[in-house]
């Protein structure tokens, strides 16, 4: 692998908020074509890391490159190459699914003719074609999530960032979203996601970085992590490297409906 094939390179990222150190010397690399997870409890520094990589926040120290481009020196070039799906529901509820996608296409400078083709493709990929003229506010939770994801893909980003993509989804919607994320990767996009669901990190990701209190505690393939700690579940790895369990795991059988 050459340096060029690294989708994300974070080098000694540190970020302070007033007196609090949210990130402390965070370094990791995501290879092109991977599905990579930042795994950790709330407040561990996952979202702060992601916001730095998205050029929405400047690091106090350290540097990062996304798709080979420095995030602090050329933020605009980075923005054109990355997609982002925030944790909150941000699709405009007063716009239809199609209008939301067309809007994003304009914000990423797609010409109208190309945008129309791309929006139709994305509606197909998200299996939303039949609902394309429904208002986003009227879509079910699972469909809404897929629309949010599609909105991050209008410009065929090299790297797609997903912040807690399955938060609040039931197990069926969650599984369906995982297969959608795999389809996105199959299209050549690198996927970096944050999650605090161990099951999700295990089932979906090629590699995970376990992050706790602003520091990277371990970073490898789920299987390799389990092997190295001679345990059967990622949960035990997490316990071993952080000295604590991960709260808020969804019960496997009964999950809240969206």
């Amino acid at each position, binding site marked *: 692998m050459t340096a*060029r094939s690294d989708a994300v390179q974070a080098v000694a990222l540190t970020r302070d908020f007033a007196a609090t150190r949210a990130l402390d010397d965070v370094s990791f690399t995501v290879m092109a074509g991977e599905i990579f997870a930042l795994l950790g409890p709330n407040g561990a520094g996952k979202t702060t890391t992601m916001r730095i990589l998205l050029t929405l926040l400047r690091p106090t120290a350290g540097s990062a490159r996304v798709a080979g481009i420095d995030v602090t020196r050329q933020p605009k070039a980075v923005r054109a190459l990355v997609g982002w799906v925030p944790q909150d529901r941000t699709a405009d509820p007063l716009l239809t699914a199609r209008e939301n996608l067309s809007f994003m*296409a304009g*914000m990423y*400078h797609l*010409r109208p003719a190309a945008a129309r083709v791309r929006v139709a493709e994305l509606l197909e990929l998200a299996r939303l074609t039949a609902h394309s003229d429904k208002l986003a506010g009227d879509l079910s939770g699972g469909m809404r999530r897929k629309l949010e994801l599609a*909105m991050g893909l209008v410009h065929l980003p*090299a790297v797609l960032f997903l912040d807690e993509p399955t938060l609040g989804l039931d197990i069926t919607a969650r599984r369906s979203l995982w297969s959608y994320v795999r389809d996105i990767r199959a299209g050549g996009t690198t996927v970096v996601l944050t999650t605090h669901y161990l099951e999700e990190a295990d089932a979906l990701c090629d590699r995970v970085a376990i992050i706790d209190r602003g520091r990277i505690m371990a970073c490898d393939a789920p299987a390799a992590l389990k092997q190295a700690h001679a345990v059967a579940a990622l949960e035990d790895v997490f316990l071993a490297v952080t000295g604590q369990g991960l709260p808020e795991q969804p019960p496997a059988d009964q999950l809240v409906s969206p």
Partner: protein
Amino acid sequence: MTFRTDQAVSLGHASSEHRWLEHIYLEHRALFGRWAARLRRERLAILALVAQPLVWLVLFGHLLAQMAADAPVPGHDYLRYMTAGAVVMTVFNASLEGGVELLFDRESGFLVRMLAAPAHRLSIVTSRFAYLAVLTGTQSLLILAAAYVMGVRYASGLGGIAACLVIGGLFGAGITALSVALAFSLRSHAQFFPIVTFAGLPLTFASSALVPLALMPAWLAWVARLNPMTYAIDSLQGLVMHGWAPGSLAGTAAALLGFDACCIALAALALRRGMR
């Protein structure tokens, strides 16, 4: 595996460095389209936008015209006097609330999502200006047409009506900038509306919208002379009642441009702090 930077070409991206003008066009097209689509979905808001100015003109115009029957109103026709005021008040009200959609976008997280895109950040605000200019321009034409039906005739003709729209637009731009500044300075829209309501009525009454300065108590007339709304209204009244006065129109336009510049500077300051 390498990065598909060639995707830009295959997608029909306008991605060359010399394409900034096209980028700005594409961003504004998307943003303006969104503002318009949101309005289309709010039927009640459309009704209010049409009804409110007509209520001013028809209801208050008639009411105050009867009270003002013996008062020395310029032009000796209150409805004719008030037409200009109704236009400027409408521009004022719509522009004063014009920034709140950006506050909604801040609250919902939509704004941050827009900031993560390569679009120019200023386009988010300038598209709002363009949208409000079209909206208030349409409202103004509606009022002028309704007043015509009610018997008001325009001394400066169709050209004067165009000049009314330009003056209204210059005045509205400054108020919109203030509204945007407010939207980026406050934490939630629960704070926005009380402030706007509190500011709106006194500013309207301390202007020549409803009562000529000559009929006001001295202190109020003095306040009204500091109110940019008065300058916009006086120009429009001149155009409606007396015809063209290029010198004074140019003076008003220059004063309003100065007002706009101050407001936009204030908005830029609020934006820089609020977009972080």
